[in-house]
């Protein structure tokens, strides 16, 4: 029963008393300037340590550790696979003949990949791999990954057809990516941001062996690993002679951020306690849009906030033990502006009902706006030296 609850809610429900919940909620809902238990500003992320290429046997890997002790490792392996051909494609194939006609396959047909070529498996201690949490998490991260397609003209360092398109070798062959996500610690807070950041870094570090064959030939690769090419192509800055200049990615994999709202306040990178009292928990996936140079929204998913499952506090007025000791006037119920429900201040009441559209809009805006949290996060990740 407990496990099921864990699995379906945003994180393990911390054992926090109604009084503590109420205190937290009150601090976090202070208008304009919420006070977070760890003293962070609403948009501040916890410090993290990250490194890439930790697993030499993989095509790309990363490790990220949050300051609260949660750690995750992601390894990406790539495998060459034969593309199952539809009837139409086979006819094209027949016409293509012995590989001489390979050049004409470069455009249209060849660039559309399939989402199923990316497989993600998440391993969380204490969960079976068919438990709801890992399955839900993996689909939540995989979906934006394969569906993020940057439309636009093809030029240097750009991926036509997004990740799916990048995995196409030619009409008959493609790469299959296996992304294995391993949470090393107990899931102290909802692990989505950690896993997403780690996966993002691992994908940036992923290299594929350099293709030597051309066109429709059976793939044949350079055996020099140093010649391998990044899955997400990089372009060197114009002045390449600067030593230590970091090459930049034009296209990057998406990240999924966890955002909570408490009353009017919007809080990023919530800790376990903060989630426990949140009115709404959203997973927002964003990616760079290569055309506009701005961020774009890929998906929003709501996550069942655990606050709904908490025990309610009992107001003194209703408490048998304290009946009469406090003046009822002190406990007059006021209407919570964000939920529109009547509440007695200082007495915890589990959240109910939905979130206001304005709040959600605000959350999205804070993520996407220029100079907003999304850019900050991506910039921060860019700073992690890859390779």
């Amino acid at each position, binding site marked *: 029963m407990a496990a099921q609850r864990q699995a379906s809610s945003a994180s393990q429900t911390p054992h926090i008393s109604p009084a503590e919940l109420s205190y937290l909620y009150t601090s976090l809902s202070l208008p304009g300037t919420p006070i977070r238990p760890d003293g962070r500003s609403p948009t501040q*992320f916890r*410090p*993290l*340590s*990250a*490194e890439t290429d930790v697993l*030499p*046997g*993989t*095509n790309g890997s990363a490790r990220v550790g949050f300051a609260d002790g949660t750690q995750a490792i992601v390894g990406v392996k*790539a*495998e*060459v696979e*034969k593309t199952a051909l539809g009837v139409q494609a086979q006819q094209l194939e027949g016409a293509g*003949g*012995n*590989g001489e006609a390979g050049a004409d396959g470069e455009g249209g047909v060849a660039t559309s990949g399939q989402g199923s070529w990316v497989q993600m498996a998440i391993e969380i201690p204490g969960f079976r791999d068919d438990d709801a949490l890992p399955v839900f998490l993996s689909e939540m991260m995989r979906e934006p990954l394969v569906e993020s397609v940057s439309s636009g003209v093809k030029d240097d360092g750009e991926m036509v057809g997004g990740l799916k398109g990048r995995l196409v070798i030619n009409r008959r062959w493609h790469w299959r990516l296996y992304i294995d996500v391993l949470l090393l610690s107990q899931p102290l807070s909802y692990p989505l941001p950690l896993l997403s950041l780690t996966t993002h870094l691992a994908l940036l570090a992923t290299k594929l*062996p350099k293709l*030597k*064959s*051309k066109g*429709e*030939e*059976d*793939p*044949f*690769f*350079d*055996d*020099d*690993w*140093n010649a*391998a090419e990044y899955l997400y192509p990089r372009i060197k800055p114009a002045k390449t002679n600067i030593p230590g200049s970091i090459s930049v990615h034009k296209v990057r994999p998406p990240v999924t951020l966890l955002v909570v709202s408490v009353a009017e306040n919007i809080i990023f990178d919530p800790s376990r306690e903060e989630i426990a009292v949140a009115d709404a928990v959203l997973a927002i996936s964003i990616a760079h849009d290569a055309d506009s140079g701005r961020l774009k929204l890929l998906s929003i998913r709501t996550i069942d906030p655990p606050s709904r499952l908490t025990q309610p506090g009992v107001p003194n007025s209703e408490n048998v033990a304290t009946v009469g000791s406090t003046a009822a006037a002190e406990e007059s119920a006021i209407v919570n502006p964000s939920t529109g429900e009547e509440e007695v201040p200082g007495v915890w009441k589990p959240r109910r009902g939905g979130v206001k559209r304005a709040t959600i809009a605000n959350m999205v805006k804070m993520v996407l706006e220029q100079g907003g949290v999304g850019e900050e*996060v991506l910039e*921060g*990740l860019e*700073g*992690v*030296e890859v390779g």
Partner: protein
Amino acid sequence: MKSLRRDFSGDPSTANVTSKVFVRSTKSGKVQKIVRELYLRQDIPCSSRLCTICPSVAPTDANGNIVPFVLSEQPAGTTAFPRGHYIVPDTNALLNGMDLFEHTGAFYDVIILQTVLEELKNQSLPLYNRLLALIKTDEKRFYLFFNEFRLETHVRREQDESINDRNDRAVRTVAKWYMDHLRAVTKSKKEKSVPAIVVITDDKENLRKAKEENVTALSLENYVSGLEEADRLLDMINESREAREAKEARGELFYPEYYSMSKMMTGLRAGNLHQGVFNVSPYNYLEGQIKVAAFDKPLIIMGRHNSNRAISGDVVVVEVLPKDQWKSPSTKIVDEEVVTKNDNPEGEDNEAVVTERERRALQEEVRQAHGKNLEGRPQPTAKVVGVVKRNWRQYVGTVDSTSTGSQTSGRRQQNVFVLPMEKKVPKIRVRTRQAADLLGQRILVTIDAWNRDSRYPTGHFIRSLGELETKSAETEALLLEWDVQYKPFPKSVLDCLPSEGHDWRVPQSTDDIGWRGRRDLRDLLICSIDPPGCQDIDDALHARKLPNGNFEVGVHIADVSHFVKPNNAMDLEASVRGTTVYLVDKRIDMLPHLLGTDLCSLKPYVERYAFSVLWEMTPDAEVVSADFTKSVIRSREAFSYEQAQLRIDDPSKTDELTQSMRTLLHLSKILRQKRMDAGALNLASPEVRIEADNDEVGDPLADVKTKAMLATNSLVEEFMLHANITVAAKIYSTFPQTAMLRRHATPPPQNFEELINQLTKKRDMRLEVSSSGALADSLDRCTDAENPFFNTLVRILATRCMTSAEYFGAGAHAESEFRHYGLASPIYTHFTSPIRRYADLLVHRQLAAAINYEGEDGRATIEGSITRNRLEDICRNINYRHRNAQHAGRASIEYYVGQALKARSEKLAADGVDSGIEEDAYVMRVFENGVVVFVPRFGIEGVVRLEDFVLPSDEALRAVEERRELVTRRESDFDPEEYTLKVSDKGQQERSVCVELFQRVKVNVSSVKEETGRGVGKRRVRILILNKKK
């Protein structure tokens, strides 16, 4: 947000661990990133005898001994390095100059880096194997230094550094380390005695960097120039490199480019390209065939452009040409020597791939393609689009005298053509400074490259074998051509022989360990029957009557496996040699002399170990039971076939031994009949035997004898076959996967198509090829009352249509494929000649294991087992060696016949004119411009060209030059459907000679030496067809 990387600098052991990362593509199409961790160590010795430190730290074996140090304390000096030097070659130096490194005059004390060895392995497996052999021998003092595992010399690849640059850096790092190391360890001694470390590299960048880093580095050419005999040594440097540099500017390309590897692989998998071994026709150097799995009949590859630089034996990938380019196989004899005799090896500018002459020769074939009959029907042709594996080897040849420049006296480097002995191989352009010296010599050359911009392959000279036509040079040439290992056995092999040498005896006491598991068969009346003068007696026989009226028949085979233990040096050498090679005057043994002709040989009157197969047979030669045992025997007598025959035929001899031989003969006849009834083939090959030890005065040709078949021959043969079959069944039942067996695949019927057609047309005879029995019967019917040899001729031709028998591991084929077609036996192996065949030795081990014989050390049962992979390797090798041994033997006989003819002509020269010798011959093939005839008396076949048809008008002309002039006047009328060729002088059709297939003709055989023209000094057997009808 900040990123933290773990810091390893504090950990002292991280320097000792590094890793190697690469991408591996597996056969199944998987692409894997492979990471290998390397643990660096500091105890890998420098192996210099000068060193005082390394011996104390070098790793020891279980007995506390270190591997003896290799590099001499006083290495040879040169003018540039008077204090002596160690050589550190890079990979290219070895690729270009392997022959130099093998040369015994220079290149001692060489440090081979692991990096270099591995790189060489990737680039050229044959060179890698040669280098390994060099490292193994002690004389040349080559030391394999595991630089990648030593901490100081391990080089990590830097960012953006190419693999080549990294490897070059590794070479320089090693050189540097050796310098410092040697200086340090010899500090106490005289400073002067430290040898120099010389890096040999042809890479300009590497040379430059070496200079910067104070490492002595020289190009191969510079280094060799500083040695004695530089001229001779410089010739041995691979030519391809220079040629490539020199010609880059020209860019004139004669041949189409090969497809990329991936394109070929895609095509092969898709089935529109085909892979196979390229085979050049022995009669037409412009025409090749390739047998591919997809088609029943081989594809034809016509002309130099289509064969696209493939050389006979290469594994190539071909593409079938469109149907309008299909042609019929050539009906013309085209000899490279004749067609291209005016090519200039120096001049490249006026070269075209297809010269006018060649084009004309090809044109003829196109015309023929429109013929109507089977032979003339166009067949699929193909073009070579890539080479999977070059099968280049060293070739024996002669310098084409016409290709040498006018001033041959100087030491100027010039290009010459070398004509390989093997006619299927094109002439090789070789750069040499010693052209004048090499004329008239048999020389060994190798092919280095064949680039698109060169009409002929380029190669380099390796060494001279000696004067043409000297026995030693020709014998060595022959052995080299057929890849026979003829070097004396190395010491490591001889060390495996019993220490008693010739004094070895079967132990007296039957309690001795040598008797364990052996049956005492010394009281049996065993004898051996072999060709006269046979020293390596493999087999002996006996037969005796049993009380129940049946016979006990025993075949006793020399117990070689007792002396040759698996996996020791002797066993490995024998497995490489595979078989003993018999030449006319020489035997190249598989096993050392001591074993082959003494300890193993079942000599008469002495006790010998044997492996016996004993049958109980009814008087009708039905086998009641079979038994196998190791034994000790004492042969009563060693007969030759003739002696045995005489003894059996002599009614006065009634002793037991003779009686048992008569029993054997009687039983063998029944066995033979049974075999023939089962459909065994009686095949024929053109065999003559040469008794070389005749005196000088007689007619040299008297030594050449066709093999006589006595009843005793077939006596031995039958029982050996029977023993082989019995043993094959036994080992197969014990080792269903790894039994060493021999099979003869049923030939596909289309192989016989042409012969069937010819027989039907010319003789109205039918050849049934549905089964071996049917073929045997129909062959028996192919007789010609007037022409007794005709039947043999047909048998020879039929044999050529078949596949050759091969060794294989039982797991390699389904049981139904085990059949031996020629012997009509469902299973077969070789058991009876372990002294001269490695397969038999293996079978002995397997049989010993199958009968639970334990041997002296109780290990015999283990020795019998062998892994499937190893068995397949062995089979591949011995099949190859076996085939080569046969070719070498035949070539030796051919050479001997030529020499005998020459000796005869010299003897008769007193009369002034060499008239040759008149013989009967039979026409085997008819071409448009000549015929191929077979001379049974000498077992040779030869091409007769138009000019060698003697017409009434020119009967007097005998000299080669005189006849050659006739060729312009000759005219021929070839009928491909009737297989006839009418030869006449132009305009004089009424006076013509007409020959047809299978016809018996009178020929004049003589040995002639070319006096002028391109083949000066070349001797060949000339056959003239005489204008005499029989």
